[in-house]
């Protein structure tokens, strides 16, 4: 009973955060950022149904997202030209159904095997559709894409969706419902068997389940929710291009799920938030943001294989032992020089590609053409690197002692 209560509280808290966010951050930039996050979260969670929960590595998940988006923008056009008459709030559901339909068809042959076969088929289908989208101009609009106008639909309770904040509440509502259903799916027999097939498809067959059928069900559900995300995208931007269904979008959703953490339901949510922030904010400051994203991904794969969610969950034992405080100082001791090191590296990267060849930091003018700048930066970088390495043993020791539990083999992770 207590468990159900805590779980309900988490969901009520989630809903409250969604409702209250725009009260605290009401700038146009913030709201448009929230909209992008909502779309990314639904998309990343749907991707994790495949990779994290079902063990299917897809390089073409944007197909279902993009098809949902294109259908949604065509639905907007139909509403605009009064062919059909319904409120735009239902469009994400329609987009989801298109995603489902596409997944029903593609999944019927691609889910036969997981692993490399599945990954290659997903890549092929993704490329196929991206190429076709430039050929079938009447539906996909070629390179120009298709644009619509969300304000023609009949108003719902007087809301006509002129403003971003109205789209925010629409997207938040869809995100909440989609998140809830994706979570509930993990708690059903089909969802649990997806984990079992991910772990050991052969064994699953010997307890009465066709691994292929189990994958197919997850695949279809995943396509449905990706379609919903695509529908939200179309409503938010009122403009859909080939990019929504090509490999770039497929790659981005993989990064979100991976950086956030595949093994945890909340992982892709974190990943979607982090990547949306990088995408929108970082790109205002530097042209190199894609490089930084790549580095972030690399560091995650190397040092946090369970993603940010996994990193947070690593501290569960220490937290339960009430020893988390012992970790604060060792963490700071390592993090501060590590951040100095990273900041210096960033400075060197920025200096090396800037056109005006100088950058001002902490009231200092750094010139890319002076060798003293480079020498100084290299010195700081190597020193901070050394200091970081020197602090690591102490951190490791603190970690061991904070996580030491008698008779609990769990502590080894």
């Amino acid at each position, binding site marked *: 009973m207590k468990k159900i209560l805590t779980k309900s509280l988490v969901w009520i808290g989630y809903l409250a955060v969604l409702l209250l966010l725009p009260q605290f951050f009401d700038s146009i930039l913030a709201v448009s950022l929230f909209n992008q996050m909502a779309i990314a979260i639904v998309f990343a969670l749907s991707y994790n149904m495949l990779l994290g929960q079902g063990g299917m590595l897809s390089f073409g998940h944007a197909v279902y997202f993009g098809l949902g988006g294109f259908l949604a923008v065509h639905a907007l056009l139909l509403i605009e030209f009064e062919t059909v008459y319904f409120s735009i709030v239902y469009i994400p559901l329609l987009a989801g159904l298109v995603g489902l339909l596409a997944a029903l068809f593609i999944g019927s042959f691609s889910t036969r095997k997981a692993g490399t076969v599945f990954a290659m088929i997903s890549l092929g289908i993704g490329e196929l559709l991206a190429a076709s989208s430039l050929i079938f101009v009447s539906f996909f609009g070629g390179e120009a894409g298709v644009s619509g106008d969300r304000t023609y639909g009949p108003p719902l309770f007087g809301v006509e969706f002129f403003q971003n904040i109205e789209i925010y509440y629409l997207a938040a509502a869809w995100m909440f419902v989609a998140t809830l259903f994706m979570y509930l799916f993990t708690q059903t*027999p089909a969802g*649990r068997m997806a984990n*079992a097939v991910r772990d*050991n498809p052969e064994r699953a067959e010997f307890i*009465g389940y066709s691994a292929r059928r189990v994958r197919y069900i997850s695949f279809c559900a995943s396509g449905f929710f990706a379609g919903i995300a695509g529908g939200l995208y179309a409503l938010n931007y009122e403009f859909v291009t080939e990019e929504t269904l090509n490999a770039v979008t497929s790659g981005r959703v993989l990064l979100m799920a991976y950086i956030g953490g595949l*093994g945890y339901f909340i992982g892709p949510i974190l990943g979607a938030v982090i990547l949306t922030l990088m995408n929108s904010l970082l790109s205002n400051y530097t042209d190199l943001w894609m490089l930084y994203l790549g580095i972030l991904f690399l560091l995650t794969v190397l040092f946090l294989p369970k993603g940010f969610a996994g990193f947070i969950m690593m501290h569960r034992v220490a937290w339960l032992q009430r020893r988390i405080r012992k970790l604060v100082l060792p963490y700071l001791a390592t993090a501060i020089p590590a951040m100095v090191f990273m900041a210096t590296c960033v400075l060197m990267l920025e200096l090396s590609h800037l056109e005006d060849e100088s950058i001002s930091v902490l009231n200092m003018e750094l010139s890319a053409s002076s060798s003293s700048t480079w020498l100084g930066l290299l010195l700081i970088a190597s020193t901070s690197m050394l200091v970081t390495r020197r602090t690591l043993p102490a951190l490791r020791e603190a970690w061991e002692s904070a996580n030491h539990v008698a008779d609990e083999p*769990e502590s080894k992770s």
Partner: protein
Amino acid sequence: MSILTLNNVHKHFGETPIICGVNLNIEEGERHAIIGPNGAGKSTLFHLISGKYPVTEGTISLRGQAIQNLPPYEIARRGLARSFQVTNIFPRLSVFENIRCGLLWKMGYGYSFWNLLGRQHDLNTAAHGILDQIGLSQRADYPAGELAYAQQRALELGIAIASGAEVIMLDEPVAGMSHSEAENAVALIRRVTEGKTLIMVEHDMSIVFGIADRISVLVYGELIACDTPSNIRSSEKVQEAYLGTVTADE
């Protein structure tokens, strides 16, 4: 009444014959052991019966129904469960989830995505019941992959019996265990297969002779004998082909 019948079963991998015309009747409730030297085809025979490999020729029937060449999940649904020579569990799921997955099909959940597992009282009670039987209740929430080896074998047995199958096939269930672990495992196998048909492959002769009602001897893909333990022990043909050194040691 015989529950499992193999009739002239052949298996070739390419040109190589592995199983050459095996005929075998297994009675309901019987404890049957299959022995034979390495490479005799014992595991292959298991794979043929449980549907991992298709047969090249011949028929296999479970309760009179032909099951040869059906996919493994169809055979499992008809009441045949098995374990594997190499531990074969769901390593990232908890011990409890492993057992619960084993129960799902028998309890009629199929591919349901509308039932919430947490609310299925009967299912969860049954899963806890099996955990008690195999002695892993204390470990219910552990990831299965972190269990000790003997516990993983017990879990595998638990998954097999969870399906409610009437025929349980165990492939070397005590291989790699210490003597005391093996004793516990044998006691566990006896307990949980009570009233069911048991077919096992095992190398440890003391275990085989202790547990089996009948023993089949497989040599180079052919069944050279199928009889009670005492007759097998005294059969010269078997002595010659396989048992010679083992009985001399005892």
